[in-house]
């Protein structure tokens, strides 16, 4: 369309009659392009519906000839340089309509280069309907607005808006499905019941003879997973905040040259590192700690129903130490940004008035950076709450209590465990996975929303510079 832009920018100021003989405004133009726009929109809608429902195939198939009609109408009023293009689009869309309708006469499948799939014919018609619909919307908007240069800009909006709406719509569908499946199962009782599956035998004396009585507690709930998630978030923030602030202040204030680039690179790579590698690291750390005097702290311990002391599989302390490595880069980057945004008048004024570096740091720089730090800690909490991959090798269901020295558990682990764990009560556990997902979603999205609102609220400080 850039050729069209060149000709129409010329024709905006002077209309040599030899260049374009076609009127670009008038009653019939307005009506025909409005009708064309509406038909194209219908084609896009029909195509997207067909993308999800095979039965709605007739919608997309019917809209393809409609779109060809749209292009014919537009070609009638297009000026000479674009007419060829529009006619080409019309023929191409007619061809696709013929192919799609012809495919309908065939049985329902297409082969795809020997891949392990058989594509349904509606894939062709839906994609074609959406594609040609967008082109038709764009061209008809252009003509509706009078074929000027400004019109060309506005007519490109559908090309950007429709895919963006598609992406946002998919998110809405995903979240809606999660809520639909999970909200019915989410009751107050579920949230406040801890998950327990304990079976033990007790020896009682009956008429002088010892008999074994079996006890069993079997209940499914999300309480200890919920508490585990909160504990994990709290411990991770605790472990990550000081190194994060230190690294950020170091990068912004004191480091130079090789030191600064090493620090920056290692923080970037820590951020980019896969959570899988951090999970492997956690397994190694626990392996080293197992024989050492710190085994109680790192491995966790619990007393089972008969009072025996057992080492756990990995405590909250160990998991939070490794998860903190994920959160430190977030805090460091945010702190560095906050430190750099401090107006230099404040810093230089403080030093000129004789304050030491420590005084400047604690009284001026850190309070200024505090909102950044809080935002980063909240975002890091959201990430710690949702991470399964780090703890998936060592986590258990936390039925022996939730405190920093027992087995790790978390809401996200519950979802993973419901699918891949071996539960004797799997039929009770599995329906809860969507409810746990809803809880987790509310937690993480709430934290992110609060963090973003805080960041937006404190952005006024940057506007004064």
């Amino acid at each position, binding site marked *: 369309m850039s050729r069209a832009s060149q000709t129409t920018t010329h024709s905006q100021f002077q209309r040599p009659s030899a260049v374009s003989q076609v009127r670009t405004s008038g009653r019939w133009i307005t009506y025909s392009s409005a009708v064309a726009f509406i038909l194209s929109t219908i084609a896009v809608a029909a195509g997207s519906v067909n993308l999800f429902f095979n039965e709605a195939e007739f919608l997309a198939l019917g809209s393809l000839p409609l779109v060809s009609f749209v292009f014919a109408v537009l070609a009638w009023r297009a000026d000479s340089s674009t007419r060829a293009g529009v006619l080409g689009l019309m023929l191409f869309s007619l061809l696709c309509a013929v192919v799609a309708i012809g495919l309908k006469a065939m049985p329902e499948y297409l082969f795809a280069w020997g891949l392990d*799939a058989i594509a349904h014919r509606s894939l062709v018609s839906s994609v074609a309907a959406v594609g040609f619909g967008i082109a038709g919307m764009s061209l008809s908007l252009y003509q509706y607005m009078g074929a000027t240069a400004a019109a060309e800009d506005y007519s490109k909006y559908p090309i950007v808006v429709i895919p963006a709406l598609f992406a946002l719509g998919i998110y809405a569908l995903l979240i809606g499905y999660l809520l639909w499946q999970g909200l019915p199962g989410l009751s107050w009782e579920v949230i406040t019941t801890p998950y327990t599956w304990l079976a033990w035998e007790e020896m009682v004396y009956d008429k002088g003879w010892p008999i074994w009585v079996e006890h069993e507690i079997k209940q499914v709930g999300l309480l200890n997973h919920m508490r585990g998630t909160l504990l994990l978030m709290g411990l991770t923030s605790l472990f990550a905040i000081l190194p994060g602030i230190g690294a950020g202040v170091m990068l912004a204030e004191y480091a130079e040259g090789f030191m600064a680039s090493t620090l920056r690179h290692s923080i970037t790579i820590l951020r980019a590192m896969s959570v899988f590698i951090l999970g492997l690291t956690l397994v190694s750390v626990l392996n080293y700690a197992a024989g050492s005097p710190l085994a109680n702290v790192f491995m966790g311990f619990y007393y089972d129903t008969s009072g025996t002391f057992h080492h756990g599989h990995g405590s909250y302390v160990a998991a939070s130490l490794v998860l903190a490595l994920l959160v430190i880069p977030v805090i460091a980057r945010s702190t560095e940004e906050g430190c750099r945004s401090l107006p230099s008048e404040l810093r230089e004024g403080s030093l000129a008035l004789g304050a030491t570096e420590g005084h400047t740091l604690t009284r001026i720089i850190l309070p200024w950076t505090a909102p950044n730090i809080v935002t980063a800690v909240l975002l890091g909490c959201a990430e710690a709450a949702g*991470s399964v991959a780090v703890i998936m090798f060592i986590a258990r269901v936390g039925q022996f209590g939730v405190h920093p020295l027992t087995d790790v558990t978390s809401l996200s682990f519950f979802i993973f465990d419901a699918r891949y764990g071996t539960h004797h009560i799997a039929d009770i556990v599995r329906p809860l996975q969507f409810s746990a997902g809803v809880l987790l979603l509310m937690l993480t999205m709430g934290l992110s929303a609060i963090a973003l609102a805080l960041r937006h609220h404190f952005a006024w400080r940057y506007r004064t510079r």
Partner: protein
Amino acid sequence: MESQGLSTARRVLRSWPRFVSGALALIPVAAFAFIVGNLVTESYFIVAEKGLGHLLSTEYSSVYDTGRYIFGMLPALWGTVLSVLVAMAIAAPLALALALLSSEFPLGFISRSVRWVLGVLSGIPPIIYALMAIVVAQVFVQPKFCAWGIPETELPPEGMTWYEGGILPHDQSTLVAGMLLAFLVLPFMAPMMDDAIRGASRELKEASLALGATRWHTMSNVVLPAALSGLTGALALGALKVIGDVIVIAFAVGYASGLPSPLLDIFEPTASLTSVGAGLLAAFSPRASVGFSRSAGYFTGLLVFVLAIVILLLAGYLQRRLKARYSA
């Protein structure tokens, strides 16, 4: 001045912020060094035992399958690369559209709120996307790509696996994983692309507009080429997140042993570095001694790390070239 009269000890004590923040800043560096060193030392065992050639071959069978220890990692590597390709193919155009919507094609409050909505969406943890794997497969992939209800007389040619009830009853395939991963990384890529487009040289854009070009022409011929280095950075970030993802791959792709039969087959479950590694390690408690499977699991972690470094270096190189070529 008073500070000239200070003793050295006093002066050192006064600059405590440097030392404290330096000590604290050493923690991430030391942790990074520990992580890499740990990966290398743990995978040294199997590299020494079996050799790199064996480890990078195409045959993989774990002790669960056949009782032999063969750890060729190439199928897993290829599976990861496939999922990156599918996810990027879906996510890149959508992210670009969202970024353009919020920077160059403003629509009032819609484009102002796109950034905020994406920020909230970026907080969704991967396990939630993994939960959707089955519904995505049942709503989109299986109606469109499986031959439900085809009578046997109309069978496709040989070479395609035939299960009872139709081709591909799998609800796990690389396509499903790629689609979910695309929507996982989209809220991270779109704001980065938005920043790149906004940060592309203003003088070039305003010069182009002043010379009479339309906004569309400016955007497609001036702004986007100037922003290409930032766009590459966004793509690299998305790729890094995709290769590192464990949970979506575990739920959506499952596990398979060999290379997919035509190489680009995204409709069947393929092995992936993280799923193979998790499978190798999950059987071992942290107190197990070093064995073949455990070491091979760490080797997959090392491969993920190496892949991440390769992507970072490649992206850095491309960014430098693009910046030199296109910016003012």
